[in-house]
């Protein structure tokens, strides 16, 4: 499956930038965040090595989250490249007192993902104002007899409404805090909690209906 080629086991090769609060702790997250800002400042001053370091640490994250939200490698690559391009362009004006680099990047990625979905639907209506149509990925899940569990998780994610998918990916896979997610999605913390709660219930129901296909055992 194409999705599997986009991820591999282990997380040792790519440094996780700011926001990875669960793994690095608040101090570690702050340290990484300040490192990102410093690298961005050096890049703006013409340091090519800083560009390479930011590319190594941030592009995988932008691509990874776009892949989870879009479920399409080509689209996720386009989104990651465009998001990083916007980062390069904004570097000279980066406000050191403002948002973390990774939070800013996540917000751009999520907005680009929404733009892609909107273009696919061919309309200009607000994506949150319309009911989520049935996703073709549902039928894919039903035929995945020998699919790995993570493929099934991704397929189940693709059945969620856009905002729920974004929120649950940021919360439970990217491990961001609810306030960070609220900032990224430009919604309240309460709305984030509601989205992730509904998303988890929907995912659990989806997976319950396919437990046999996933190789689960009861209990």
């Amino acid at each position, binding site marked *: 499956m194409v999705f599997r080629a986009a991820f591999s086991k282990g997380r*040792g090769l790519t440094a996780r930038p700011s926001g990875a609060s669960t793994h690095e702790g608040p101090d570690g997250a702050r340290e990484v965040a300040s490192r990102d800002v410093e690298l961005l400042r050096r890049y703006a001053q013409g340091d*090519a090595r800083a560009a390479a370091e930011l*590319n190594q640490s941030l592009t995988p994250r932008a691509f990874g989250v776009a892949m989870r939200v879009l479920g399409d490698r080509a689209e996720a690559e386009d989104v990651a490249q465009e998001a990083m391009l916007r980062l390069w362009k904004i570097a000279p004006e980066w406000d050191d007192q403002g948002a973390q680099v990774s939070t800013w990047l996540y917000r751009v990625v999520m907005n680009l993902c929404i733009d892609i979905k909107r273009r696919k639907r061919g309309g200009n209506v607000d994506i949150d104002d319309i009911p989520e149509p049935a996703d073709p990925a549902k039928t894919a899940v039903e035929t995945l007899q020998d699919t790995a569990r993570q493929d099934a998780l991704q397929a189940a994610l693709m059945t969620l409404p856009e905002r729920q998918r974004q929120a649950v990916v940021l919360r439970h896979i990217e491990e961001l805090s609810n306030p960070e997610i609220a900032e990224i999605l430009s919604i309240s913390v309460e709305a984030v909690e509601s989205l992730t709660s509904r998303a988890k219930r929907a995912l659990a129901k989806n997976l319950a209906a396919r437990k046999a296909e996933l190789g689960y055992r009861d*209990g």
Partner: protein
Amino acid sequence: MAEKDKFANALDQNEISPALLSELDALFSDAKQERPVLSARLENAVLADALAAMPAVQHERAADRSAGSSAAGGMFRQLSEAVGGWPSLSGMAVASLAGLWVGFLPPSALTTIESLARTGLTGEIHGDVASFDGFDLAVVMSEDME
């Protein structure tokens, strides 16, 4: 209507057992352990974008334009710095040329090279390899002995 919703909600709650939620958490935990695998195309494209958009490069280009020269040199220097300097670039160049050379060799020549490597004679008779390209090493050596 309200009663119906209440019943539906209760049914939903009943469908999601703690065991199922823990299975979902296990899936999330596995997903967290996975790291994105970037294509070389994306990595290179992002780095090329970075170098092209770098403010210092933009200034250099403007200065070069006003001086009537090309900015290609500046971009090449930036790329060199980003991948680790001249040693990396020269290593990449040697590896590329070696690959190109092997690609052009006929299969028989590769067999001969492999045989030479096994006998440990590569250094001594390297010049002969080209002369007897396509011949088996044993034939070559037996002719020499006659």
